[in-house]
């Protein structure tokens, strides 16, 4: 009796699996539906809102339009497109004209319609940009980075004409209009539902009021987001995909398995090892773009602790196992940042002149007074890459008498920890949206001591050069300054660049039209499925 019952259970177990395969085959819309798996999804639909998570950029990108967008250029190794930072094209703007004094820009809007059916007007653009500079938090900070600082700068001339007045000449103003912050809301819809809040924060957090290529059909925070195509999109070629399902799958193994077995079309955010394996196996396409203006670096505190002594910072730079890290931690999915030329190029990031040289490092440590113990921290959220990296660093530093204790800081705490600026060594990856060396150094080494100046590096000479470069009008001047300040940080090494990581995406062979965006979120508008 027991056996027959067990057999019955076994039958019951197997049955749903068998039948399911028939069920999935019958789905007719599969070729127009894209299944994307990512680690976690948006926590809001409003990228301008406070506390929005990284994936909200994707919502902003696909469901809203901006005045301008970055121009796609082919990825050198093939596989899709990335963007050219200096080259912009119109999104909502049909055309734009820089004033002759270079202190304003006038935009002519397309005949675009919001999802509500209402035409997009300059008033909507003004309300949206006003909102971005006023709402506070990250959105406002990002706007300020491009010298977009106050509502008075934005002028709606008529329904279809819009002007931005500059407060100063800033080469980042125009590119900053193409990032995922200054997107355009349906201001009437928003105000109507605002419940008295001038910026309709609650409404926009949970609802899309845009004109973008996609609408959000369903959003289950932490579970999935379903996008459907807006057939009336006016700002570009109509996307091929009708429906996008973005599922949140925390486990990277599962994400890998899904893409490998063909159940998912696109998988984001896998560990480098998986991208390498998938690329090697060749069953799916892996497209990797070295993240512009992104680098894994070891920050050495220049104000507190042992690394005040520049010799020790240099010693560390001479002893890091760059190649081992690239192979064992990033599995080759990155660009080595060691062994660069003595004379830098006007580019960022670029290899520093250091490479693994134990004798040199020992000499420097001896000169600085010998070995000691210290701690190395990193964000637990980055553990997949940072943990092996830190273990290798610990081992390497052990060889020159520096004993390292590794501290894995939970994500929630990491920002607090780096804000303290007391930890001697921090391993972190920082990437700037706007691909300019001065932009990167402004955030990470400038004396204004932003939270990302983890090394707490203070050098008025460097500050002067960075500021000069930011607002430099002349290209030659600019490049000269850049080379100068890179030479300085080469010498001073408050941050030792280790690798420029690759931003990888794994896709089925049937998927085409991959477009890399600086916000690193998937751009559905260009994607195709065979």
């Amino acid at each position, binding site marked *: 009796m027991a056996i027959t019952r067990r057999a019955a259970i076994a039958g019951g177990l197997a049955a749903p699996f068998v039948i399911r395969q028939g069920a999935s085959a019958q789905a007719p819309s599969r070729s127009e539906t894209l299944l994307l798996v990512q680690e*976690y999804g948006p926590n809001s639909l409003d990228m301008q809102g406070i506390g929005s998570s990284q994936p909200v950029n994707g919502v902003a990108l696909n469901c809203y339009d901006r005045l301008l967008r970055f121009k796609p250029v082919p990825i050198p190794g093939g596989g899709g497109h990335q963007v050219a930072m200096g080259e912009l094209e119109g999104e909502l703007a049909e055309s734009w004209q820089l004033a002759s004094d270079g202190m304003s820009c006038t935009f002519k809007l397309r005949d675009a319609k919001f999802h509500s059916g209402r035409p997009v007007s300059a008033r909507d653009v003004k309300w949206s940009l006003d909102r971005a500079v006023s709402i506070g938090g990250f959105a406002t900070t990002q706007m300020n980075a491009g010298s977009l600082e106050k509502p008075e700068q934005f002028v709606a001339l008529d329904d279809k004409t819009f002007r931005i007045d500059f407060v100063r000449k800033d080469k980042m103003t125009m590119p900053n209009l193409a990032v995922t912050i200054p997107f355009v809301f349906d201001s009437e819809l928003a105000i109507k539902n605002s419940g008295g809040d001038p910026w309709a924060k609650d409404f926009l957090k949970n609802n899309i009021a845009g004109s973008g290529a996609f609408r959000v059909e369903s959003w289950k*925070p*932490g579970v999935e987001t379903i996008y459907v195509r807006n057939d009336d999109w006016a700002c570009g070629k109509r996307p091929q995909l009708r429906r996008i399902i973005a599922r949140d799958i925390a486990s990277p193994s599962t994400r890998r398995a899904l893409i490998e077995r063909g159940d998912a079309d696109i998988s984001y955010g896998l560990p480098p090892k998986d991208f390498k394996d998938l690329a090697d196996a060749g069953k799916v396409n892996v497209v990797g773009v070295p993240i512009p203006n992104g680098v894994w670096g070891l920050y050495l505190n220049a104000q507190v602790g042992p690394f005040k002594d520049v010799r020790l910072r240099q010693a560390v730079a001479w002893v890091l196992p760059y190649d081992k890290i690239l192979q064992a931690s990033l599995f080759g999915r990155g660009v080595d940042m060691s062994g660069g030329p003595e004379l830098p190029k006007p580019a960022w990031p670029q290899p520093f002149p250091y490479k693994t040289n134990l004798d040199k490092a020992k000499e420097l440590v001896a000169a600085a007074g010998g070995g000691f113990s210290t701690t190395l921290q990193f964000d637990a959220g980055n553990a997949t890459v940072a943990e092996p990296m830190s273990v290798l660093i610990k081992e390497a530093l052990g060889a020159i008498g520096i004993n390292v204790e590794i501290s894995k800081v*939970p994500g*929630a*705490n990491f920002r607090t920890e780096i804000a303290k600026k007391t930890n001697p060594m921090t391993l972190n990856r920082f990437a700037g949206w706007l691909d300019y060396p001065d932009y990167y150094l402004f*955030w990470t080494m400038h004396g204004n001591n932003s939270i990302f100046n983890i090394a707490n590096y203070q050098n008025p000479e460097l500050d002067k050069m960075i500021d000069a470069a930011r607002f430099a009008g002349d290209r030659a001047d600019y490049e000269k300054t850049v080379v100068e300040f890179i030479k300085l940080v080469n010498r001073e090494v408050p941050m030792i660049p280790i690798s420029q990581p690759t931003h990888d995406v794994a896709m089925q062979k049937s998927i085409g039209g991959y477009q890399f965006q600086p916000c690193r979120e998937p751009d559905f508008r260009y994607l195709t499925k065979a």
Partner: protein
Amino acid sequence: MLRLIAARLKTTIPSILGVIVVTFLLTRVLPGDTAAYFAGPAATPQAIAEIRGKLGLDQPLPVQFVAYVKALVQGDLGQSLTTGQPVTADLAQRLPASAELTLFGLLIAMAVALPLGVLAAVRQGSWIDHLCRVVATAGVSLPVFFTGLLLVYVFYFILGWAPAPLGRLDVFFSEPPRVTGFLLIDSLIAREPETFRAALAQILLPALTLAIFSLAPITRMTRAAMLAVLSADFVRTARASGLSSRTVIGIYAFRNAMLPVVTTLGMVFSFLLGANVLVEKVFAWPGVGSYAVEALIASDYAPIQGFVLTMAILYVALNLAIDILYGVIDPRVRLEG
């Protein structure tokens, strides 16, 4: 019986209050500055302070606590910063998923463990007994996340029998109209056998993972209880009266042995709710466990408090249900109460 329930409720009030206070304090001790975290990467100290004020985190602890309790009384558990939704809504959305998984897991475990425990007790000392013990113990010795990964690897990745571990329902099915929130039940109510099969296929592996984990305590308890009962005088009387072994074991022994087993079910359930957290993470199950873990990592107080409180209430409710069940089985409790 009513009296019993009332008395039980009375004793649980202090522990619920304790849970509220402890959770509140614990979440406030959590490292990480929520304001800094949500102010975004490039925030200035002023921006952080502004957000801190907005979240009420600049108030002294007692003030924050009073505000929290006030909101709680009105059924407001606050807002999750990670999902951006009210915690109540999030929990309502996700709780059925966790409950369905845990209960289904428990059901599988019981379906296997009870006969196994009875068999082990009836054949005490035989190879079946030893096998039961080894199998059950091996199950509880496996870390749930490891079991989950292995099952996914074997059944999904290698054999391809199981569907992709993508949550509660295959992507190309739509959820049945929500009645109970349990997909297995809702799909039956809606008469959608295909959806039912799809949901069943999704839930099997995670539920199995949980079941493997909870097999041991239930088997162990069943075996021990059966052994105790089988050596009891009334079983001897039943045997001496010539009752068939089916009646003796099934009606006389088993029902009596169920009494201690039922009480351990509460323990096992609490145990499973903990294990759930890890299983949900592995199987991308949209339940409250994974929700709580993510909130914890993000120092997001409100969901943690809401989650813990919900679990505490659930636990109390479950224990109450067990007391009632106990009363149904045992007339001594029912009549003397």
